[in-house]
């Protein structure tokens, strides 16, 4: 079945440094839809950005990601981390057409001064 892998459980950064959170996926379907959700402490997950176009950069709220079907990746990046970026980030995949979304295990980002 479909799966999403987020290799880092925890990423710690100093404010101002670049952010990169890894996401790879597996699916037999050729047209997957990829999402990044963010969950701040004591809040519920909310959509950060999404994409289905190969090799096209998608941006929102200072974050960006590019879907690369050749490497089955959808890494989340930001040029300069802020304290307010500290949160749990989920990469997610929708591919089967049955409206199910498969979430990765999540990466917690902690940004310190």
């Amino acid at each position, binding site marked *: 079945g479909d799966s999403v892998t*987020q290799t880092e*459980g925890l990423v710690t950064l100093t404010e101002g440094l670049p952010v990169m959170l890894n996401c790879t996926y597996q699916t037999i379907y050729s047209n997957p*839809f990829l*999402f990044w959700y963010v969950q701040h402490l004591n*809040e*519920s*997950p*909310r*959509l950060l950005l*999404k994409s*289905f176009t190969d090799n096209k950069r998608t941006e929102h709220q200072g974050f960006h990601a590019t879907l690369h079907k050749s490497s089955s990746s959808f890494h989340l990046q930001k040029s300069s981390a802020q304290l307010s970026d500290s949160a749990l980030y*989920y990469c997610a995949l*929708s*591919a*089967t*057409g049955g*409206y*199910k*979304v*498969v*979430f*990765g*295990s*999540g990466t917690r980002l902690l940004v310190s001064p």
Partner: protein
Amino acid sequence: EAAVTQSPRNKVAVTGGKVTLSCNQTNNHNNMYWYRQDTGHGLRLIHYSYGAGSTEKGDIPDGYKASRPSQENFSLILELATPSQTSVYFCASGEGGVYAEQFFGPGTRLTVL
């Protein structure tokens, strides 16, 4: 923006007892979902629904039942609660389509003693 509410927000149950978690959405979305969130596992899909009267098994349905009596309401039922079902449960709703955003409720923290 979609409004998804859950009740109760916190629940302590005894092993072997019956637990019902309720979810209500006011945005007239067709699809509704129940997830559990555990550290290291991320968000895992328990049951979902395409509309009133329908329920589908997700990835981890064992020990759970679901009910969708109306467009607005989606319940998760634990007939015989076990300590392994201690978790945070999120309900979500979304429009049909693989590219659709999911809107999450505030979550229910369930502790089974």
